[in-house]
């Protein structure tokens, strides 16, 4: 349980225009294992994370994790940074320049919390691809190498809570995928709570159970990832092009011949590339509106695997090339993005029955987060 | 601007004098200035530094050295005006002890008689104990040279040589005794008289060391009438009471 309710002002200083003053107001609560902070550049994500770590002292408020109060301005309580048991992957790395990579990695490694086991050093370095860099002086590393060492250093410090501020920003796709897997393992095997800052919807939907949306210094919403990304009013903040539905589904069958997994949710069944989870697991599937095709007759001889039926609830026609058609499947609303021309040609109307087509491979493994 | 010009054009007579003369000479100069409406400035430092400075062209018109060696040095370089050198003042050495010391050794010390050489020796070593014998550095400071000569002549040098604390000027030696850090020391009588925290135990017989002479001369580069008038005044009877007041012996 993470419970944050703080305020922090950075007043404009002498010589600065008033416009440069900034107030961060953050009130949110979540018992997610991974909670993402999502918002535009300058919206206050790093400030909140710093306050949780104890690096920034809020002007007023309260921060508690698992009912342990870390900061409380009314009780004048302010736990020291080192006693908070928090690991932090900084946005700007902050490796110790006088230490080698190995010394950086092991700096916090002897911190032990009762009954807590840690990932073996070798596994972390190998998965992050830094095993060959161990004896290097840290300032000679490349940008991505620095970032990986910073991740390793925080992971190895045995934290109870891990703060990650855009940890994957300068990694290539392959390394990013591996690191995401590592983060999931840390969450599952070590039970570390993670607060994750990212600009990437893919990362957020894959990892986060809950998302807090920030805008101009204010937390404007905090809820289940699914809810947040399905809320139309938040679309301006969650990203116009990245819209889609997030559904929680249960794995019901593995097809070992074709390496597909069948998932079931209230609106029907879908198949997706095989995910190695036990049957019965709940998995978060993201269906991007741009990946959804609509049809008025059931298509045949087509490579699309998933054909769901539903009725059109609404069509959001903003006059451009694109129309967003919301289709109700069972009790769920799924957005589909098609061209306005298609809508007119297919003569779609509200209430009409349509087929909703989604390719199996549109669910790529990298963006599927399993939650149990 | 040559130094001699700067010495005279400003109409100021510059005197280089041994630091130990400061109080007495300041008073003499004040009197001279009011009497002659002339401005005089005195630079007080170690005689050696002053001599070296004169050698490198210092605008001093009058030099008063604490001993004759450095005056000889300048004379040998032909920097002093012929016939102006004179022995200005004399001084005496005294054996001192802290005024506050109340122990037996220091009490019996007053009865010291340098004629009785063995007794003097034992009295001094008793008073010294494990302490130090404070005096100016005999290799460097005139007062130290005289004191060393006297102790040698009195046959006491060997017994104090290993216990000597050399200082860079007489005042530091005086301070050691005044603070009770050193149980014994040798300084000028003029210094001892001005320091209430020390007690003069004995006067050192003048015959045991070369005469202590403050030697004065005009520096030929800056030889002016006023400078000569000042030197004449310092050596005059009119100046005598002030010298005496500060413990010097006018020659």
């Amino acid at each position, binding site marked *: 349980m993470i419970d944050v309710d703080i305020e922090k002002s950075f007043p404009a200083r002498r010589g600065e225009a008033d416009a440069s003053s900034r107030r961060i107001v953050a009130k949110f609560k979540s018992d997610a294992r991974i909670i993402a902070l999502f918002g535009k550049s300058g919206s206050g994500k790093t400030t909140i994370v710093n306050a949780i770590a104890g690096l920034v002292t809020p002007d007023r408020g309260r921060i508690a994790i698992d009912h342990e109060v870390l900061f409380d301005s009314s009780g004048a309580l302010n736990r020291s940074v080192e006693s908070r048991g928090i690991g932090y992957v900084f946005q700007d790395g902050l490796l110790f320049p006088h230490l080698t990579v190995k010394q950086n990695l092991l700096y916090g490694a002897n911190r032990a919390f009762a009954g807590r086991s840690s990932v073996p050093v070798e596994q972390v370095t190998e998965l992050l691809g830094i095993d060959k860099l161990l004896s290097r002086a840290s300032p000679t590393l490349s940008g991505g190498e620095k970032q990986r060492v910073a991740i390793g250093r925080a992971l190895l410090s045995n934290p109870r809570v891990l703060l990650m501020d855009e940890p994957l920003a300068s990694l290539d796709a392959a390394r990013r995928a591996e690191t995401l897997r590592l983060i999931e393992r840390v969450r599952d095997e070590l039970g570390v709570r993670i607060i994750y800052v990212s600009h990437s919807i893919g990362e957020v939907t894959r990892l986060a159970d809950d998302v807090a949306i920030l805008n101009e210094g204010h937390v404007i919403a905090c809820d289940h990832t699914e809810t947040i990304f399905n809320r139309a009013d938040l679309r301006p903040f969650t990203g116009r092009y990245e819209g889609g539905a997030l559904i929680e589904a249960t794995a019901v069958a593995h097809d070992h011949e074709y390496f597909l997994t069948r998932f079931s949710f209230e609106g029907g069944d879908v198949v997706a590339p095989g995910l190695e989870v036990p049957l019965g697991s709940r998995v978060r599937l993201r269906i991007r509106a741009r990946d959804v095709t609509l049809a008025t007759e059931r298509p045949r001889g087509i490579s699309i695997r998933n054909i769901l039926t539903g009725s059109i609830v609404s069509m959001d026609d903003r006059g451009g090339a694109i129309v967003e058609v919301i289709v109700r499947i069972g009790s769920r609303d799924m957005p589909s993005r098609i061209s306005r021309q298609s809508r007119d040609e297919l003569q779609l109307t509200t209430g009409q029955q349509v087929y909703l087509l989604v390719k199996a491979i549109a669910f790529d493994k990298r963006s599927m987060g399993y939650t149990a | *601007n040559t130094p001699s010009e700067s010495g005279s054009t400003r109409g100021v007579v510059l005197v280089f004098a041994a630091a130990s003369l400061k109080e007495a000479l300041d008073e003499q100069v004040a009197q001279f200035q009011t009497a002659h409406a002339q401005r005089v400035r005195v630079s007080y430092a170690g005689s050696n530094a002053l001599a070296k400075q004169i050698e490198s062209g210092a605008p001093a018109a009058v030099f008063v050295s604490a001993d004759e060696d450095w005056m000889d040095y300048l004379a040998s370089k032909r920097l002093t005006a012929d016939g102006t050198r004179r022995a200005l003042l004399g001084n005496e050495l005294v054996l001192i002890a802290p005024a506050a010391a109340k122990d037996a050794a220091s009490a019996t010390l007053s009865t010291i008689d340098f004629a009785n050489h063995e007794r003097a020796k034992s009295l001094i070593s008793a008073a010294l104990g494990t302490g130090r014998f404070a005096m100016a550095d005999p290799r460097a400071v005139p007062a130290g040279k005289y004191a060393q000569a006297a102790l040698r002549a009195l046959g006491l040098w060997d017994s104090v040589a290993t216990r000597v604390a050399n200082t860079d000027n007489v005042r530091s030696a005086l301070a050691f005794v005044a603070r009770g850090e050193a149980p014994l020391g040798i300084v000028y009588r003029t210094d001892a008289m001005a320091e209430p925290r020390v007690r003069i135990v004995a006067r050192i017989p003048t015959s045991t060391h070369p005469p202590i002479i403050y030697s004065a001369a005009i520096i030929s580069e800056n030889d002016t009438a006023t400078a000569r008038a000042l030197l004449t005044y310092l050596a005059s009877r009119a100046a005598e009471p002030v010298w005496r007041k500060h413990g010097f012996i006018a020659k």
Partner: protein
Amino acid sequence: MLTAEEIEIVSLSLRVAMASVILSAPLALACAYLLARTDFFGKSVFDALLHLPLVLPPVVIGYALLLLFGTQGPMGRLLNDGFGITFAFRWTGAALAAAVMGFPLMVRAMRLSLEAVSPKLEMAARTLGASRIRVFLTITLPLALPGVVVGLLLAFARSLGEFGATITFVSNIPGETQTLPLAIYGLTQTPGGDAAILRLCAISVALSLISLIASEWIARRMQTRAQLSGGGALA
């Protein structure tokens, strides 16, 4: 509060200290930069020579100055004949002595700060078209400013306390070369001068306190503007 004589001494001391700092600052900065950012043959020896005023007794430095810059010395003659500059027995000489004695302190503090400026930032400035000299003036120097100020301060304080080299080089002439320490020295040679000594010491302390607070103020002003150690998003 202060006697006329004391005022004279204090104002002379300040003049000497200021002049010595101003005289040596550009040269010290140049030396510091050379030592911090370049490598040349004989650098160690050059560095050692710069430290001499610290290592040798002040009297020796004063004596060396006398031999070099006295009216009879080679440099002294050159400067006198060529430029009409005389150091011997002038307050300028006291300033020179103080400058020489404070020089190693000034250079070291400046060098330390220059070395701490990241060459990456200098490189960044050069990709923006700035010449080496512009980079130095707009990036390196402002970032090294705390150390430069400390260097000036140390040299200034050292000047206020300089005794041995000064009295050996330019003698102890009231109104011309008699700075605070020399005046204090004179008093230590006078029986019963303790009260006057304490007064002068108190004045010295006051001066140092003022110069210290001034330097802290300058450094802090620069630093708030500069955000040097950069609390950044953390602070």
